[in-house]
């Protein structure tokens, strides 16, 4: 009797594998040129910013940093930087410290003789770290509270959502400034501030998906098997609600980078002499009007291009995962 059953079912099992949801998303994404450009920008950004980690992975024998590099604080050790970003040289060139781009200093030097390229590279690393860690903190909070709130509903849901509402109600930048003022400026505090204020968006986004997913039958199946609530939430519900979250992450990293730049611009983020795109913009803006354009231009372009890349990719990802969008 089981032979008939075997003969009946095993045959004709799909020979052409239908596209998995990811493969289908990628296919649709490929059609969106802007999103692909964004993806390329992101990849470059990740490579540049993460150069030190990559170099470490490749092995210590590749390290050939100068002594001064080894003395820098860890977030300053951008491996790719040809010069010490904080090491000024008043005789960097014939005109003194400030020099336009040349073969020796590809992006020129600033008013302290520091190599602009090195500073820009280190700043990339800062932005990368801020983006990832800040969003990471926001996700850790948001993706714990969101699913729990959505799954249990009732009082828990009300409390969490009201808390989220409170966080939404405050003007973002002002609150970030407030927290930074309380915590004090500095690298670590930047991503705590951004992270803590961003969790509500992820939580609410996720809660919406959770509300619809928790009604689906495979969740009931898990309960019928005796799965604990925690298992159901984090093993069944959460993985199936991640699609819009990925989009939010891409946008979120872009936003975090922008916020950090704003903070550094205002002098509340990175403290001098640490290099960050925002602080570089603050420092160099007066020189721009004196005709020494290279100091301001490159960090500005880097900032704009990076944020644009994340947002384009995020948009493209959102379109590609939207089942109702006609191709």
């Amino acid at each position, binding site marked *: *009797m*089981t032979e*008939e*059953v*075997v003969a*009946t*079912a*095993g045959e004709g*099992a*799909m020979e052409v*594998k*239908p596209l*998995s*949801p990811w493969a289908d998303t990628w296919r649709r994404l490929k059609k969106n040129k802007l999103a692909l450009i964004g993806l390329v920008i992101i990849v470059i950004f990740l490579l540049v910013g993460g150069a030190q980690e990559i170099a470490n992975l490749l092995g210590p024998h590749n390290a050939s940093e100068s002594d001064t590099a080894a003395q820098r604080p860890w977030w300053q050790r951008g491996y790719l930087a040809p010069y010490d970003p904080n090491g000024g040289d008043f005789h960097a060139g014939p005109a003194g410290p400030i020099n336009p781009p040349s073969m020796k200093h590809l992006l020129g030097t600033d008013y302290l003789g520091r190599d602009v390229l090195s500073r820009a590279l280190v700043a990339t690393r800062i932005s990368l770290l801020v983006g990832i860690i800040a969003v990471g903190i926001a996700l850790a909070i948001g993706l714990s509270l969101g699913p729990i709130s959505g799954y249990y509903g009732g009082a828990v849901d009300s409390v969490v959502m009201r808390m989220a509402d409170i966080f939404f109600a405050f003007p973002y930048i002002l609150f970030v400034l407030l927290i930074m003022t309380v915590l004090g400026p500095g690298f670590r505090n930047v991503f705590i501030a951004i992270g803590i204020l961003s969790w509500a968006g992820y939580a609410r986004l996720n809660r919406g998906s959770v509300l619809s997913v928790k009604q*689906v*039958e*495979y969740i*009931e*199946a*898990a*309960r*019928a*098997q*005796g*799965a*604990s609530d925690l*298992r159901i939430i984090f093993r*069944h519900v959460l*993985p*199936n609600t991640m699609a819009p979250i990925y989009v939010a992450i891409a946008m979120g990293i872009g936003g975090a980078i922008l916020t950090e730049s704003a903070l550094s611009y205002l002098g509340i983020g990175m403290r001098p002499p640490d290099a960050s795109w925002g602080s570089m913009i603050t420092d160099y803006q007066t020189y721009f009007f004196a005709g020494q354009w290279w100091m301001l231009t490159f960090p500005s372009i880097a900032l704009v291009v990076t944020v644009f890349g994340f947002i384009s990719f995020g948009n493209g990802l959102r379109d590609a995962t939207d089942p109702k969008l006609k191709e």
Partner: protein
Amino acid sequence: MSFLEVRDLKKHFPIRTGILKRTTGHVYAVDGISFSIEEGETLGIVGESGCGKSTAARVILRLLEATAGSVVYDGIDVMKASRVEMQRLRRDMQIIFQDPYASLNPRMRVRNIIGEPLRIHQIGTPAERRQRVIELLETVGLNAEHAERYPHEFSGGQRQRIGVARALALNPRLIICDEPVSALDVSIRAQVINLLEDLQDQFKLTYVFIAHDLSVVKHTSDRVVVMYLGKTVEIASSDVLYDRPQHPYTEALLSAVPIPDPETERNRRRIVLEGDVPSPTKPPAGCVFHPRCQRAQEVCETAMPPLECTGDAGADHMVACYFATRYEGVPKRDAPSKDTGEAPAR
């Protein structure tokens, strides 16, 4: 002592409206049903939408908390079982769902879907579990290589088989099949029905088979419970139910089922019910069926008739009707010869 005894089970869902979420009414999804199930039998539950059969299934398994009533299994009232007892009970009572596309987690591989119950109850080592998953796949007619795939790579019928394998993982004694073939193509339904029957023989399973398709229920079930608007209106063995229906709703239901035989269809006398099924939020007073019933009289508006046996249509044939059809003196029709398989003249 029956294998499973359901007594006066009720499930009412409160309707909460307004800002303050006050309870303005109830959905009387299940409103006092009682029946028993013997070990090894297949009990069919049939009824149309809104009758409460799917809700009843979930309450029996305690996926929903009952409003009142009891479900006694193995001496324990499932409704009152402790957490620990419930975990043990879950191993004995499993469920197969209707929608093959929604009942499997799309992000999990088949081996994890089937193996999860084993992991939850901490049965066996990982190697043993892997082996068991392959065993189960083969039992339902799939192969070991299917274990690494994801649900979207399978057809509806195959996914339903995966659902069956998952239900079998813990060696249950009772499986509730909630419309297991309704969402499948006609040519695949027979495969899955046969599979379920084979598994019942092989593993000595007891089934509760819920469906709205009477033909399927009659084929698979030993006894059938007919539900309407949260109540049981008739319970009989499946042959007798077709042969000697007593409740007017059952009669209407039977006559409404299209039969794939043009000759029979042409000669049929059809009872077409007027109107729609009332909403379970406002069940009619008295007998829930009386507004649509051709036999309804004054007494039917007063109280719901009790479910009892009239004696003339079979020893365990129960019906809830003041004017149930009587079969005194009507000889049971002979089973027609296998050759002609003729329909009875009705």
